[in-house]
Every structure is written in structure tokens, then in C-alpha cells.
């Protein structure tokens, strides 16, 4: 078995001539590298400080100019507030625009035996919100509720819409 202590104690013995030359070359190369690094400023504390300050300033600039653009492009959530309008009707106000619902989705659904456009079996990717074509800054509460309505009966062009929200119990 190899004895580690024997191996380490061999460091006190004189090296062969060729190995000594290699060590000299290695030492001179290291000195050259250190000298080059110092000249280029890589280890200069002033330069490190300058780099940190520059990075900090760059971060501030990016935050100042970039953050408003990111917030404007990506609304984090929609808060709906219901307020009465001048006619006493409930109107939904949102912090972000909601896409206009597309009533044409119901026309593509097969009518059931009672002639109703029941969209209950529609896949999730057929929701009207996904088919929005234009934005409305202040949709009414009706539009908000109709945006993803699936159970509809009657004529889509009817002048009056009743929305029932109910519990079967």
C-alpha cells in the first residue's frame, strides 16, 4: 500500500535538474501573470469600486426607465368594482380593460332538443374572453358576466338579457 507520509516527506530532497528548471519557468510565468493583471487593473480596488458603482448606476437606470414599461404591458390583476350609473343600473369598473365578448361562439354550438344554445360542454379554450376583438375601458356588469357565459337560451339578438345566478340547493 502507498504510504502518504513517505510521499510528503520527499519534498525535502533535492529535485532533479530538469524539474528545477520547470519550476523556475513556472515561477516566472506566475510573476508575469500577476504583473499583467496589475497593469490591466483587474485587482485594483479602485477599479473594482468603479465597476460596482457603474453596475449600480446601470441598475438604477434600467429600473427607472424599464419598470413603467413592464407594468404598463402586463396588468397584474383585474379589480372589478360595481357602481351605479346615472340610470341606476349596476356598472362594473375595472382597473384593466376586459376584452369584448363574442356572442358568435354560441352560434357554433349545437342546439339541444329544446332549441337552446347550451354551451356547457364547450372546452375551456372556447371561452369568449379568448376571442376578444376589442377592448372596453368600462364594461357593464352585464358584459363582464356574459364574457364567459356558457348556459344561454333564447335569441342572441334579443333586446333584453336576464342573467340568473343561482344555487341548485
Amino acid at each position, binding site marked *: 500500500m502507498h504510504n502518504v507520509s513517505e510521499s510528503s516527506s520527499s519534498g525535502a530532497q533535492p529535485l532533479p535538474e530538469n524539474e528545477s528548471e520547470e519550476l523556475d519557468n513556472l515561477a516566472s510565468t506566475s510573476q508575469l501573470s500577476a504583473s499583467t493583471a496589475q497593469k490591466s487593473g483587474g485587482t485594483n480596488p479602485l477599479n473594482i469600486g468603479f465597476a460596482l458603482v457603474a453596475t449600480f448606476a446601470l441598475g438604477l437606470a434600467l429600473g427607472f426607465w424599464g419598470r413603467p414599461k413592464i407594468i404598463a404591458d402586463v396588468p397584474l390583476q383585474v379589480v*372589478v368594482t*360595481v357602481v351605479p350609473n346615472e340610470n*341606476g*343600473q*349596476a*356598472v*362594473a369598473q375595472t382597473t384593466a380593460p376586459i376584452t369584448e365578448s363574442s356572442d358568435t361562439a354560441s352560434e357554433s354550438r*349545437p342546439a*339541444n*332538443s*329544446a332549441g*337552446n344554445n*347550451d*354551451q*356547457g*360542454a364547450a372546452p375551456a379554450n372556447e371561452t369568449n374572453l379568448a376571442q376578444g376583438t376589442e377592448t372596453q375601458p368600462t364594461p*357593464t*356588469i*352585464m358584459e*363582464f*358576466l*356574459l364574457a*364567459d*357565459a*356558457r*348556459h*344561454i*337560451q*333564447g*335569441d*342572441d*339578438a*334579443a*333586446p*333584453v*338579457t*336576464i*342573467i*340568473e*345566478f*343561482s*344555487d*341548485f*340547493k
Partner: protein
Amino acid sequence: MSRIREEYIDTGKVRFVYKHFAILGPESSRSAEASECAAEQYEFWNFHDLVFSDQATNRSSLDQTQLTSLAEQIGLDSEAFQTCLSSGKYSLQIARESQAIQSLGVRGTPGFLVNGVFISGAQPFEVFEQIIEEQLTAAGD
């Protein structure tokens, strides 16, 4: 509901939309899920009418057996209905829909919006008739 359907929905004057507002516990959620399972077989409205009729007359418990019985009464495929109901695949959707309505400030059930005019609770036909007629007049019909 039947009079509203006869006089307004079937005549093209009114469009009627149902939204789940299941806030009365697990039984109401399960009933709403059952209605979605009925909708898979294009019988949502028949199931809707039958459940409310049953609640008005018998007030029976809406457990899975009763829901399946109601589904059979309107000719649904019982096995497919039970499989759908047991899967619970509509529970999250119904919870979200109910939460969205709750976020609008609605607290009681049933509730109705007639062109934005709110009606709270189960009201007689005449209440609906008056508001519908007002809205039809406003719309120039």
C-alpha cells in the same frame, strides 16, 4: 320561469343566461357539477328546470343518488352522468364562477340581472314582467 320562457324567451324578446353561484355548501356544489354533467349531454336546461321543480315541491336532498335519479328522469345516459359526477372535473370551474359573482358584491341566491337591473331573491313573474317591459320600451321594441 316557465312564463318568462313562454312569453319572452320563446318570442325572441329575452335571452336568458345561467351562472353558477354555489355558495350553500358541498351539496350545492355537487348539484352544480351535476348540471354541468347534464350539459355534456345537451340537457342543461331540462336538468335546471327539473332540479328547481324538485326543490320547490319535494325539497329532497340532492345527494348523488337523487341527482342520478333526476338525470334518469330526463333521459340522460346514467352511467356517463355518474362517471362525470364522480370525477369532480367541474368543481374548480364552478368555484371560480361563484367567486367571480361574489366579488361583484352579490350575497344572496337566487339573484337576477335584467339588462343590468338587479332583482334579489325568487320574485313572482309580475316583478320580472314589469322590468322586462320597461327594458323593451327603452330598447324601442
